[in-house]
């Protein structure tokens, strides 16, 4: 006889632990436990059998892996949390006694936990971390837009704003933005960094208020983790492309609301770059890879030379510089000789896909009612130059009256241009005025769309999600609806005609012919003979074709019916499990289909209404 197995000593009873038990085991408060779980990424598990895991009770509880909890017990952060508890007691005691100096020294030495080891544990490789920054980005963008107050220290908001600016800088620098979507919730951006698709949502620039039913502590704990995570991720991203992290902040510009322009990207000047860096001296002049690249570009682009690039070399150089250096304002750093740029990197960046330099030939002016943070980011990510009036913040690289401006992004109703000077009019005619959606639609389409549809005051074409929907979903862009509707109409007509035909057939002689035709449909050789017979009977070819088509449709329908009946019968032979699965799948399919049908029906109704309106008006 084997050893007697006691109940609850092995298996699920041991592998799982309830939350209460976990808190008790860790000897910390529930709030601390929650904080730890958030930081360490430990989440409840669903045991296969709840009763077995919970000593026979089926009360609703959340379970954790016992190993996870055992692992938490050795967490340095937990130790720090305990220390913090002691510190809080000491501090309150000192404050209660009015011992200000000791309180001050306590406050100065208060225990602070670090999260870098947790980052390393949770994300063993950089790609792991990168894959998981979606939520982190959403959070820091949200908190960067929140008003600081009692619960939100201003440093926190500032740090979030800084991190978000760093991320934008990196995306613009690496030109890795792929898609954007203006939704009612905010702006969705999708970038591809190191083959990872990262999507984040940025709220529109309005003041958000934290609702009362939201636990700010939880959000702040998440934010703590996310800030650390993003710091390390950005460090790696910046250093990988040879930039200094954190990018230095120009306080003056920052105070002038220059936004991302306040940060300047600095090349990390490490000694090894001198080895990589190749310079050739020709005619006593140093020629770098940069120059080579420029000439190559000039040659390849000679066919479509832009006005700007031809105008003078001086203007084209900073435009080219944009790839490496995003300091748009001519600063002392940008005047440094080009030779300091590592050649290998510039060569690497040569075969960029065209879509990332979509706006390279254009210069944009943001009108003051458009959101600068959104469109500056979008345009610059796709290689365009952008300027804005002083009312939208300082640091605009181009003047409002700059002749190089090709597009004006404007979002206000048109007005009459009566009192404008000739110069203004000339400028207005030279520029293209587009609504903001044009920029996003161009990015999503991967090409420059016609500006006419997006002109100022025009009714915009619908803005469609670039992320796509599930397979077989209703596609608003595809226009089969009209055709389909027509088809249906003709169908019904044909059917009624058929009935009439059949009535006729009773007295006319070609009833027999039709019958043979019916048999012949589907078999090509028989069809041939039927055709001949029809010809002999004096039927013209068009009528014959029509007949064949009709019959074909009919037989097809019948065939479908028969198939369905067979399938229904075959369903009898499915096992119970398979049938349930089948029903479930069918149900979801049905749901999708009804959704699509509803949308299509709506669309059809809209088309009909529109037609009626046009008819009525004409």
């Amino acid at each position, binding site marked *: 006889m084997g050893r007697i197995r006691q109940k609850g000593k092995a298996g699920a009873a041991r592998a799982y632990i309830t939350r209460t038990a976990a808190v008790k085991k860790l000897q910390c408060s529930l709030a601390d436990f929650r904080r730890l779980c958030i930081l360490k990424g*430990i*989440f*409840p*598990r*669903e045991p296969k059998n709840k009763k077995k895991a919970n000593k026979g009770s089926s009360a609703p509880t*959340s379970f954790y892996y016992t190993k996870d909890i055992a*692992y938490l017990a050795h967490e340095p952060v937990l130790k720090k949390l305990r220390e913090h508890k002691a510190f809080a007691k000491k501090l309150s005691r000192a404050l209660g006694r009015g011992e200000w100096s000791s309180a001050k020294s306590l406050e100065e*030495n208060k225990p*602070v936990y670090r999260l870098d080891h947790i980052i*390393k544990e*949770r*994300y*063993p490789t950089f790609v792991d*971390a990168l*894959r998981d920054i979606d*939520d982190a980005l959403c*959070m820091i963008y*949200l908190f960067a837009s929140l008003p600081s107050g009692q619960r939100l220290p201003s440093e926190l908001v500032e740090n979030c704003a800084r991190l978000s600016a760093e991320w934008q800088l990196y995306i613009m620098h690496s030109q890795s933005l792929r898609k954007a979507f*203006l939704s*009612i919730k*905010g702006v969705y951006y999708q970038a591809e960094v190191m083959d990872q698709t990262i*999507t984040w949502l940025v*709220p*529109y620039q309005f003041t958000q208020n934290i609702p009362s*039913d939201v636990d700010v502590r*939880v*959000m702040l704990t*998440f934010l703590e983790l996310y800030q650390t995570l993003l*710091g*390390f991720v950005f*460090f*790696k991203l910046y250093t990988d492309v040879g930039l200094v*992290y*954190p990018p230095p902040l120009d306080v003056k510009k920052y105070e002038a609301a220059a936004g991302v322009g306040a940060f300047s990207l600095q090349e990390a000047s490490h000694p090894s770059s001198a080895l990589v860096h190749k310079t050739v001296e020709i005619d006593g002049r140093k020629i770098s890879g940069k120059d080579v690249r420029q000439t190559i570009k000039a040659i390849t682009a000679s066919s479509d030379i832009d006005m700007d690039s031809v105008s003078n070399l001086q203007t084209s150089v900073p435009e080219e510089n944009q790839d490496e250096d995003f300091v748009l304002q001519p600063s002392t750093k940008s005047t440094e000789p080009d030779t300091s740029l590592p050649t290998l990197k510039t060569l690497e960046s040569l075969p960029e896909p065209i879509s990332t330099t979509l706006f390279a030939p254009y210069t944009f002016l943001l009108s003051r*009612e*458009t*959101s600068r943070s959104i469109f500056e980011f979008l345009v610059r990510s796709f290689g365009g130059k952008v300027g804005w009036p002083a009312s939208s913040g300082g640091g605009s690289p181009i003047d409002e009256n700059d002749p190089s401006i090709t597009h004006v992004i404007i979002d*206000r109703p048109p007005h009459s241009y009566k009192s404008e000077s000739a110069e203004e009019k000339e400028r207005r005619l030279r520029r293209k005025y587009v609504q*903001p959606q044009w920029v996003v639609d161009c990015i999503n389409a991967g090409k420059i769309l016609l500006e006419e549809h997006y002109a100022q005051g025009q009714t*915009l074409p*619908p*803005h*469609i*999600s670039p992320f*796509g*929907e599930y397979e077989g979903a209703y596609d*608003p862009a595809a226009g089969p609806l009209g055709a389909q509707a027509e088809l249906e109409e003709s169908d019904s007509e044909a059917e009624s005609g058929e009935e009439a035909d059949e009535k006729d057939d009773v007295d006319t002689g070609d009833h027999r012919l039709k019958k043979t035709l019916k048999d012949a449909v589907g078999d090509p050789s028989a069809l041939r003979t039927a055709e001949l017979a029809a010809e002999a009977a004096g039927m013209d070819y068009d009528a014959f074709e029509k007949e064949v088509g009709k019959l074909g449709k009919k037989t097809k329908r019948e065939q479908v019916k028969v198939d369905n009946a*067979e*399938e229904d*019968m*075959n369903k*009898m*032979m*499915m096992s119970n499990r398979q049938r349930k*699965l089948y029903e479930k799948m069918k149900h979801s*399919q049905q749901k999708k289909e009804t959704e699509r049908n509803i*949308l*299509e029906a*709506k*669309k059809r109704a809209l088309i009909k209404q529109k037609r009626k309106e046009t008819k009525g008006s004409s």
Partner: protein
Amino acid sequence: MAASDPQKHSKKRKQVEDEPDTHIHQNAVQLEMLTDDEDGAEISSDDGEADEFPEIDTGSDSEEDFDAEDNEDEDEDEEDDSDGLDSDASLHVFPKAKTVTSDITGKPKRVYPEIEPDYDSDSSTEDAPNRVGNVPMHWYDDLPHIGYDINGKKVLRPARGDELDKFLATVEDPNAWISAFDKNLQMDKPLTNEELDIIRRLYQNENPDASYDPYEPMVEWFTGKGKEEIMPLSAAPEPKRRWISSKWEKQKIMKIVRAIRQGRIVPNKPKSTNKLEFYAIWSDQSSTPHEPPPPAPKPHLPTNSESYNPPEEYLPTDEERKEWEEKDPEDRERDYLPQKYSSLRLVPAYNNFIKERFSRQLDLYLAPRVQRVKLNIDPKSLIPKLPSPSTLKPFPNYKSLTFSHTKGRARCVSISPDGAWAASGDEGGTVSIWEVNVGREVKRWQFKGKIGAVEWCPRTDVCYIVVGIEEEIHFLIPPNLPDSVYLLTKSLLAPATLPPSPATPSPVKWETVSSDTRSIDLPILSVHLPPSSGTPTQITWHRRGDYVASVSTGGSQSAVWMHQISRRHSQAPFKKVKGSVQAVLFHPTKPHFFVATQQYIRIYNLAEQHLLKTLTPGIKWISSMDVHPSGDHLIVGGYDRKLCWFDLELSDKPYKSLRYHTRAIRSVHFHPTYPLLASSSDDGSIQIFHARVYNDLLTDPLIVPLKILRGHHVQDGLGVLQVRWCNRQPWLLSGGADGNVAVWCT
């Protein structure tokens, strides 16, 4: 002392040649010298002051207690300077001495005051008549006295009035409010002034002792002028540590000094900054101690309906909007309503932004994550691929004719072995024989009571039908038989010489109609089952046609009877059957007998008379069963809509269990020659299956649904009550509750 100093000094010089140390030492010495000088001066002045002591002493002594209390404050003022010295007077047991100049010697002498013989005791104790002391007074509770006075006389208990007296006393006596019960005298006594004063002080949170002075000036006993000790307390030489600084302390100090010089100790520790310095955390490929948790699923990407400017068809109609608003937030399919704005500047802030982020975070840390495999398959691929029914022809396809019973439900149907004739019985007691091909009725018998079962004898050399009516089984010979067959049948059913009756008499009686009253309208042979055994609802033949088994339901007696035609004998095969028997069957090849009770099917070996197997189909109530002509497969239909297929070679659990009828299954039947199977149900439909059984043991039987035959009406919840196959054609007969018997042809 002064002489020893230089010696020590020189010793110190020899030991350490550290200048600061010697300085400290010298200072210490000078300090000592200074105090010495002062001591001398103090002593001389001290003597002069001593004269004043007695005067003050007498003053304080002569004063009365009450006065002292009254003038307390004044006294304190007066005595301020001398209080420190004379406050100890109370501590002295003896009175203070006066120093006077003696008349005789001319020298000062001490004179003590005369001792008075009276007790310097409390007046209150003096006049207390009760002298028992501080004893518990309840000792005297039962006695008339309360103690003894100083003379040993009893002190009688004072009269104590009742409550009214007490109350009057409080009213009359002006001192009542300041009097309290004296335990010793057992009566109320007014409080003395001192006691009242104590009470007042206690009320005011003061020290109850009136004479207590919290701000007494400090008494300088050993320090101050004139109190210095000239001589040291101990004669031990002064230890070295008094003037030489410690070597270890110096080392410790030097350690700190060095640390400060090297910058290891800074005056103010830099404030701990919570700013984390970022570094290349992923530069080393160290493995983590355990697997990180699986990454959280990414949220869904936005669809067209979330656009600020969606195509118009995405906008909700009024009903949809209303429905969305009425739903609970948890039940909504999406958390927003699509909206359309004509331009971007009109788009407002999204109210639920923070809420959504928060709920996402709750999901991240509170929701259990389960990895589910998403099946990305076409649901049609789940449907088993079966051969098309069109390739499995022939099978009955349409209703070729209907034979109607007018008197009731067509309960039972049977087909002659040659397949040309059909017999059907209804609940009105009619049994009809008609042609299968054209439906022409040839003969009709009318009985009293319901027809439970009709079965044609499987033998081809004789021809008769067996009809089960209430508690009787009749044998009928159809008309128009060839002479040879008729004679043989007659001789079988009504032999000239009856076989010898069996040794054990049976409760079942066999009765043959006598030859003179014999007619075609009457049964030639009747078997009377024991009374109250119920209607035989099933009659089943052994394949040889000699034995017939009947199952009666609704009776109280044992239901199964086995009748042997040749010996005209009936017997009950089971003494006792567990459960009520629903159906019985003979095995087509072996001497096996199937008995279906409500939930189990038992297979008995009739030759060896023991139970072979018990099958558990998992049906709540079995309605019918049939065995495949090969004898290896059994199908069972149940009232709970299930059809079970058993492979008898394999398990006692069903090989396949099908549920496709919407109502109870009434009857199942295998075709004797074609691979066909039919089941009928109360939903009025008949399901035809292709049921091919392979000789090869490894190949599973092939079951293909072929056709659903509909044509019977459902009446009173009953549909098709029995189905029977034609023996040679793939035709089917079905008797329905609507009184029709239908023939289904290919």
